[in-house]
């Protein structure tokens, strides 16, 4: 891409012929009046989305047959750039003939694909993809008006990247499954953040509820925690970190060894644990009757070591100090 990116001003050259045609002559621009809807035996739905201050606003008119929920006619008006006009025009076209529920399934991705001249070449450049998102949002708005429900109840899931329609769960899953460590990797795997880049981090094109940098950080923290818990709970002594090993050793000592020593009036404490050359060296100090006992360097020591081998791992060596 580098060679093609070095000359600027190619935004419009990346529009498909279909996009250009629809900017110049939108087929479904205009309004539907109450009278026109009535003549069709339909209910008029008028939905507004966006704002001038944000650079994009669209109004969608639907004439919906109340018996079948079918959209009999659709028109739009737009305050928006060329790609917003073309996307709104295609969105209106795609919604016609569908039921309201079917129309709700139209996404900006489908709108963009329908505007392509051929299957492989995108209809609009990446930084314009967010202009097509309005087309999706206004459908949701119209459907919520028709159904008399809150718009948020129609949301299937939390969308992080509107341009590529990638949800929060997908992004978290991809980070976990592929052990992703950078935002760039998330974009490579999911396309999230590849278009208007608003969802990458705060301070971009528009404000977002979720940002990839935050999702990545939080997911990595959660993954790290889970790993620690898993290690702590695991039976595999070798996989534990030093603190977890210490706990496991104390547990084995407390359950299996100290009671036996106590029967003879003795005890022990752990002074240090050092890992070296594939061995776990446990330095202990005898207490009570064990201190100075002849067996403490022979039989008792053997007993302690054997018990720890049995309970924890073969590579444990117990060293009295």
């Amino acid at each position, binding site marked *: 891409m580098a060679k093609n990116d070095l000359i600027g001003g190619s935004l419009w050259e990346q529009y498909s012929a279909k996009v250009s045609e629809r900017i110049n002559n939108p087929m479904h621009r205009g309004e539907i009046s109450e009278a026109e809807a009535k003549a069709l035996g339909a209910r008029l739905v008028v939905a507004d989305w966006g704002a001038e*201050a944000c*650079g994009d*606003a669209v*109004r969608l008119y639907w004439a919906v047959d109340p018996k079948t929920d079918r959209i009999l006619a659709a028109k739009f008006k737009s*305050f928006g750039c060329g790609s917003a006009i073309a996307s709104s025009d295609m969105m209106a076209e795609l919604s016609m003939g569908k039921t309201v529920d079917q129309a709700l399934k139209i996404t900006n991705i489908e709108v963009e694909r329908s505007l392509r001249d051929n299957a492989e070449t995108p209809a609009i450049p990446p930084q314009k993809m967010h202009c097509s998102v309005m087309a999706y949002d206004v459908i949701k708005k119209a459907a919520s008006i028709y159904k008399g429900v809150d718009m948020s109840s129609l949301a299937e899931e939390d969308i992080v990247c509107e341009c590529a329609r990638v949800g929060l769960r997908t992004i978290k899953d991809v980070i976990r499954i592929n052990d992703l460590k950078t935002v760039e990797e998330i974009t490579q795997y999911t396309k999230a953040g590849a278009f208007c880049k608003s969802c990458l981090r705060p301070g971009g094109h528009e404000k977002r509820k979720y940002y990839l940098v935050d999702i990545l950080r939080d997911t990595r923290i959660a993954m790290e925690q889970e790993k620690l818990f898993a290690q702590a709970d695991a039976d595999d002594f070798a996989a534990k970190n030093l603190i977890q090993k210490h706990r496991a050793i104390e547990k084995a000592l407390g359950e299996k060894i100290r009671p036996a020593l106590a029967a003879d009036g003795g005890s022990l404490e752990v002074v240090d644990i050092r890992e070296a050359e594939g061995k776990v060296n446990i330095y202990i100090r005898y207490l009570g009757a064990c201190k100075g006992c002849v067996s403490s360097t022979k039989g008792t020591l053997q007993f302690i070591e054997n018990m720890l081998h049995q309970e924890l791992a073969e590579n444990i060596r117990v060293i009295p100090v």
Partner: protein
Amino acid sequence: MNKIYLDNNATTIVDPRVKEAMEPFFCQQYGNPNSLHSFGTETHPAMRLAMDRLYAGIGAGDEDDIIINSCACEGNNHVLKGVYFDLIRNGPKSEIVTTQVEHPCVLNCCAFLESLGAKVKYMPVNADGIVDGDTLRQYIHPDRTALVSIMWANNETGLVFPVQELAKICRENGVLFHTDAVQAIGKIAVDVGRVPVDFLTFSAHKFHGPKGIGGLFIRKGLKLTPLLHGGEQMGGKRAGTVNVPYLIGMGLAMEMAVGNLAYEDSSVRRLRDRLEDTILAIPDTMVVGKRELRTPNTILASFRGIEGEAMIWDLNANGVAASTGSACASESLEPNPTFVAMGISDDLAHTSIRFSLSRFSTAEEIDQAAEVIRQSAQRLRAISSTYKNDK
């Protein structure tokens, strides 16, 4: 279709006489001016003439420097980075003062210097859309401020900043003053003999010269660390073989631009005003900035209910080339600081279209463009979801 070019603040047509003057220096007198042989030295008379024209054009004295470089963007980088090295990194000062409405080449360069530890203060414009002396006085500090960088005229609005007063304030406070005069030269009088600037930058292609060549004025006696290190060209202040044909073109372009200032101020202004009047006759339109405060060639108009990029698409389809500051495809939707300072509604932030004329604009073109603009506004408002047509 007869195409009409009204984007002269972006770039201009090369004057055919400029092209003609450059011609012999491609295939005939093509020597390197630093060579000792005749191929090199035979370029010198024309180069000297070009330098004379540049010095005369901005009123520079023989002891001043005009470094020939690639463009004003390079010159602006040279000044900002050079002063940073000389007075901040290797000197006692800490701050650079500029404005919120500078060209990206100044703003992005400042952001880079901030990343290196420099403190940069961005002055707002006032309700007229310009930076005034009172604001500058609040921002500069004789001990801390190394450099003040303020454009002579704004590229978007055409508003002319009071550089004489601003430069004087800096001089009084012992602070260096730089002005990006890229939108001023050829439109209004620029005279460094009268205005005490320390550094001034310009690009030839904004005044009917070729693209890829510009100049940096440095007041006599001032030190400025080079941006490009290398050979001894430009007295060691800017390495790289001088683009001889383009320098010769820029010299002639400067002479003609300055010679045409009276025409610019009368005829171009009259055409601009004529276009502006027809735009303002369209309902719900406005033009940013008072006429008398603007360069004679620029109109930043706002058409309520029409998104900027959709408008320039439509104008382009009908043969009129203009530009928009609408941020639809940009990385940020931050509101334009000029609009905010001037109290212009957020609803108009994405509706602005810039028309910029030149001495090559004709009355027929302006009348034809006015008609295209009128029809385009009508058509786009008919499909606008926010424009109330019943008003």
